[in-house]
């Protein structure tokens, strides 16, 4: 049963990947067709609309991250793509390589490099055990990430973009740097190459709001959100600075996280919003990080805070019979929700002694967002 379920999800992911590469290939053919029949356009849409439709496909700004979701979800289900001699592996490696722009990576070969795509490339290199795709012999990728740090300690997404720092970028940078660390320095305390880690930690701590959750930026500028809460907590964890949280802030955070489980078992991302499969990950991973850090009392696990069997039931309802996970029961699945739904499911399963799902889902590392078995190979 469990094996069958894992197989379904793997089939879904494979089909998605194959379709994705096929689409990229078809864009070429469609374009040829389009120039031949300029007056009619594609599917009777007319030339202008067809052009925009194709542009939307090419202008995908998170293509490389999407690849990470799909590949990492496969690894979570136990697939060892790195040792396969398959066409999809070579396609993936080729696409990652072609997204390399200078020291960073772009979401798509025709775009400019940015932080999130670069970190996705680093994560993919770890999952696929191909450090050479980064061409990082001189530490160029690490330097690229470090160049995105702002004077206030936070990180931005692109060089010279004049965007403000944001906890998502800050977490992504810390995650990428942790994965790129020299093998000898593994688990070796603070990320020493980051400028002023204490200031970075302070910046993240200041994102905590009055209700206990964390927003995207400091000082109450943004409403608490489970995704941003995860970014702040995981960032603090990678800096090994969760102990800087006061007892009071911890209690308020735990209360906020505990309140995210809704009737029906699912977890929402903000008060007053609907439960959604992906918040399983953001919320459980945050809870795991805060509960497992020193100074949380009394000691507790996820099973002490959440009704995990009810949560698993909700996730089963979100899972499509043909594989893949949807945001809500009855919706269509997509790779984003499949990845974060299964990752959260894995945390829920591994926190229970007798969970039926434990066998088919690898344990996830709560701050590096990779299966635990892979984090040692960095």
């Amino acid at each position: 049963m469990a094996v069958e379920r894992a197989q379904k999800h793997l089939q879904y992911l494979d089909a998605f990947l194959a379709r994705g590469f096929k689409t990229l290939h078809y864009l070429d053919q469609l374009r040829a067709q389009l120039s031949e029949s300029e007056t009619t356009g594609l599917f009777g849409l007319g030339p202008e609309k067809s052009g925009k439709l194709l542009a939307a496909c090419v202008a995908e700004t998170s293509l490389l991250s999407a690849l990470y979701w799909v590949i990492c979800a496969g690894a979570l289900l136990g697939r060892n793509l790195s040792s396969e001699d398959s066409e999809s592996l070579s396609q993936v490696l080729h696409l990652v390589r072609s997204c390399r722009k200078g020291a960073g990576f772009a979401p798509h070969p025709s775009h400019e490099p940015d932080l999130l795509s670069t970190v996705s490339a680093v994560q993919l290199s770890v999952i696929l055990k191909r450090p050479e795709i980064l061409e990082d012999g001189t530490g160029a990728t690490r330097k690229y990430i470090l160049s995105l740090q702002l004077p206030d300690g936070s990180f931005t997404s692109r060089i010279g973009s004049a965007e403000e720092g944001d906890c998502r970028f800050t977490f992504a940078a810390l995650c990428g740097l942790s994965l790129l660390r020299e093998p000898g320095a593994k688990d070796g305390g603070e990320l020493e190459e980051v400028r002023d880690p204490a200031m970075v930690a302070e910046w993240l701590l200041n994102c905590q709001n009055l209700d206990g959750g964390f927003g995207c930026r400091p000082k109450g500028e943004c409403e608490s959100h489970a995704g941003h809460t995860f970014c702040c907590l995981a960032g603090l964890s990678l800096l090994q600075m969760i102990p800087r949280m006061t007892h009071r802030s911890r209690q308020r955070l735990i209360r906020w996280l505990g309140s995210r489980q809704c009737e029906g078992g699912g977890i929402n991302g903000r008060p007053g919003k609907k439960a959604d499969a992906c918040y399983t990950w953001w919320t459980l991973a945050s809870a795991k990080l805060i509960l497992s850090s020193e100074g949380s009392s009394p000691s507790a696990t996820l099973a002490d805070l959440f009704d995990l069997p009810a949560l698993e039931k909700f996730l089963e309802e979100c899972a499509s019979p043909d594989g893949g996970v949807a945001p809500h029961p009855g919706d269509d699945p997509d790779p984003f929700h499949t990845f974060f739904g299964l990752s959260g499911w894995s945390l829920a399963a591994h926190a229970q002694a007798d969970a039926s799902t434990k066998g088919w889902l690898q344990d996830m590392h709560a701050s590096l967002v990779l299966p635990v078995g892979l984090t040692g190979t960095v």
Partner: protein
Amino acid sequence: MATEPENLEDDLPYSQRESWKDIVPVPQNDGPHPLAVIKYPLGFEEVHNYFRAIQQRNETSQRALHLTADVIEHNSANYTAWYYRRRCLKDLGIDLEDERIFTDKWARDCPKNYQVWYHRRWLVSEMATRARSRTPGPEAEETIQQIAKSELDYHLECMRVNSDYKNYNGWSHRQFILQQFNLWHEELPFVEQLLEEDIRNNSAWNHRYTTVRHQSWPFTDSIRDRELNFAMQAIRKCANNECAWNYLSAFLGDGDGKVPWTSAPAVEMLCREVVEVATQEGTSCCFAIQALANIHEAKGEIQAALEQYEQLKELDRIRGKYWSWRAASLRGMQMPALFAFLLLQALLRRSICDRRRRQRKAPTASR
């Protein structure tokens, strides 16, 4: 915005436009590992080839400005195009009010695109700088306030058009404008209007707290009372609303700007009232019970607090685990307290005994 001849040529490909005759388009260099399968739709490639050429020439002109709009139409997340657009606007001294109207539809149609909002921020800040350098003084300040206020109206309009009152970028934009132009003092009626429409809009509750904090920090008792009353009124209208109860706990408890739960008897009364009404109606309000638990904890009535947690375990089954954990942490805190209490009692008893012994001894000694 574009000059006349360009308008006439707008429907032609760039390669056939008279005004672009001098430009040699620059095709994309795919680097050492080209992904041969990627080709672009009609127009996309040409626009980007011309955009590359313009960047290489470092040309800021009307036609370059016009071109950036085309690039953005193809891909509104292309931040290079947005950046170049700002350079053109600045170098050419273009009327920014026109630009603001021109970008209206971009943020309205695509409110989740950060680039558009960032562009708006730049526009408003730049308009203020220009107004001040043109005619410094109260008149300029008046103009700037008008611009900033119309930007706030625009945020509301975007929320209305998209029926999305929780868009993160939009709220962030609003807070930037309020902070930059010091408009916090007029903000409460707006929040109240939104909460009137949807009392469960957590974004609006969050905004209320930020507003109050900017208006009157450190909180005085009267401000705190006003806010507690506001939340209590909201609770009276709709008791099962996590946002309003969270808002109460922003002012009560332990921490900056807060007073202990025991110092607001009205809140305790409200909790009891809500619990009673719910019981009569055969329903329950877990938030009220939770607040009562907080009040009991603050008063040191551990047993009463534990009873509330027992109730919550029954009523709020899905979070039953969490409530057990809360009870356990309370008992955990209780243990040291109990220990201290017993120790104190023992010490007291000993000192009383000592005194008695001394008293008993003293007379004999004196005798």
